[in-house]
């Protein structure tokens, strides 16, 4: 009848949501490295982090959105549209850094547009972002005329290429970017009032309103962050491929959502940690990289990926249990 008694019942779900994502990652890493020794090569690990970074960035933004019990399906399209914008501007002679800056601001604006529709239009995030996903993608096609945007201005510019292809002390530059935004997202979510309000909004919107939280402003801000981070991903991808693809980022929303959920965040909102999302993104990265290393046929890769996601979330079921 006292408070220590709760600890008696060992709860697998609780265990997973505390330590689980990390444990799942470790198990996966151990398994893959036993099966293929080259997995733990420094080179491969660098590849891995590099491969993870864009999804991780999008997932950081998605985490805020999901914590409010929302969802953003348009991140992949925002990535493509902002990337195409930046590439277009570089071709028109703008210095790459400035173009990147404008590109991410564009991404933030697209995100804010989503947020405004959700906050003021009072429509479900799923359907709003499903619609804007289509709109932004169409706009990307119109802008690029369906062709990849590329040119010597991009191929020959060092400052352009550094973002997605550069190395600093032997580590891909984009990995630093991922880490920097992780730290910012972590602080924002766990150490500021903004983060508290995000949890509150997702936990009980009405109560948040009663507590005087400006829920509309908060929603807009959160989708702005999601758009911004997708656009950062878009810049990295554009630089990495030395071209802006009109269909870049297709399906990325699903990987980002999977990363967030694998990290123990509840789709019902109000529960989850930023660290979990980083781990979730790594799980997906290790899975993709590992399956390639193990030479699993691409048909079976889809099956394996689905089963791993399923297993992880079932262990994490505690979430919806109360």
């Amino acid at each position, binding site marked *: 009848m006292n408070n220590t008694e709760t600890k008696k019942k060992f709860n697998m779900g609780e265990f997973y949501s505390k330590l689980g994502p990390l444990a799942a990652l470790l198990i996966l890493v151990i398994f893959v490295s036993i099966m293929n020794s080259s997995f733990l090569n420094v080179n491969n690990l660098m*590849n891995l982090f590099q491969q993870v970074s*864009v999804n991780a960035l999008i997932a950081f933004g998605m985490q805020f959105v999901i914590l409010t019990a929302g969802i953003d399906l348009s991140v992949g399209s925002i990535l493509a549209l902002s990337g195409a914008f930046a590439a277009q501007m570089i071709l028109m002679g703008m210095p790459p850094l400035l173009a990147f800056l404008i590109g991410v601001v564009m991404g933030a604006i697209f995100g804010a547009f989503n947020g405004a529709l959700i906050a003021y239009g009072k429509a479900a995030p799923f359907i709003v972002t499903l619609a804007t996903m289509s709109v932004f993608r169409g706009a990307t096609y119109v802008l690029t005329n369906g062709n990849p945007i590329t040119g010597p201005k991009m191929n020959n510019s060092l400052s352009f290429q550094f973002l997605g292809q*550069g*190395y600093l002390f032997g580590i891909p530059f984009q990995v630093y970017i991922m880490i920097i935004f992780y730290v910012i997202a972590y602080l924002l979510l766990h150490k500021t009032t903004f983060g508290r309000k995000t949890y509150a909004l997702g936990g009980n919107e009405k109560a948040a309103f009663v507590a005087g939280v400006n829920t509309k402003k908060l929603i807009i801000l959160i989708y702005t962050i999601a758009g911004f981070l997708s656009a950062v991903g878009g810049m990295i991808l554009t630089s990495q*491929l*030395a071209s802006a693809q009109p269909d870049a980022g*297709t399906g990325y929303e699903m990987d980002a959502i999977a990363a967030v959920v694998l990290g123990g965040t509840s789709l019902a909102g109000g529960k989850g940690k930023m660290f979990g999302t980083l781990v979730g993104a790594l799980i997906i990265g290790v899975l993709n990289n590992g399956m390639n290393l193990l030479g699993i046929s*691409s048909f079976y890769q889809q099956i394996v990926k689905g089963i791993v996601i399923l297993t992880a979330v079932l262990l994490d079921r505690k979430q919806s249990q109360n």
Partner: protein
Amino acid sequence: GAASVGNNKSSSKVTKKAAKNVKIGVSLSTLSNPFFVNVKKGIDNEAKANGSKVETFDAQNDSSKQNNQISDLITKKVDVIIVNPVDSDAIVPSVKKANQAGIPVIACDRGSNGGKVVTTVASDNVKAGKMAAQFLADQVGSNAKVAELEGTPGADAAVQRGKGFDAAIKGNLDLVTKQSANFDRAKGLSTMQNILQAHSDIKGVFAQNDEMALGAAKAIKNQDIKIVSIDGTPDGLAAVKSGQIDGIVAQQPKTEGKLAVKAAYKYYQGKKVSKTTASPIHLVKSSDAK
């Protein structure tokens, strides 16, 4: 310095290898299209016949995914990478990365616009589009109204084939509408149905792949509208035989795959491989089949 965008240290000397020791890594743009499934078959068959190991990845039409796969192939130290790029520009950094690691790259069906490739095995999509235009014009006569079913917006094959076709029909045929059916058979059917409503007087259809043509054929049924497409999948060729489709500019995916593997062997025999390896395309007509 600490910061770099990578520099080339590619070796020019080739250590010779027997065919059975050549480990082949493959990244295909997609495996949900029969054409590329057949490229894969061609690769597999040829490799099997020579006893070499193959590992194939499906990039699911995502350039960035393809990049990751090539990184992973480099990690696995395969002896040659056969890549069927999702996009000829976006593949360049990956090709350069392989160059740095000293792994030869063979481009298949689409080229790479940068980096060094041993050879590009390709059937020319622009040319295929032109051939299709030529055939359609022969069938329906000058200035007849025709429609075009486009592939997935932005996809390389869609862009190239469309480019060839559109250029060749200028002043020759009257293209009344272009609609995308995503390279998909079901979508080809419904889109064709809708086009027929809006333009009941068309005389011919160009579908950018066989799948859409097969769907379109279902919509057209026995109306006198000529259908031409590009690819040459088994389903497509069967339809030409039965007269549902009037002509296909057939590429030979299996041959393409085979040629790519052959080029790899040639490279490891220390022989010179020419910059391009043409995979033949040819027109298959229903009038010939009958």
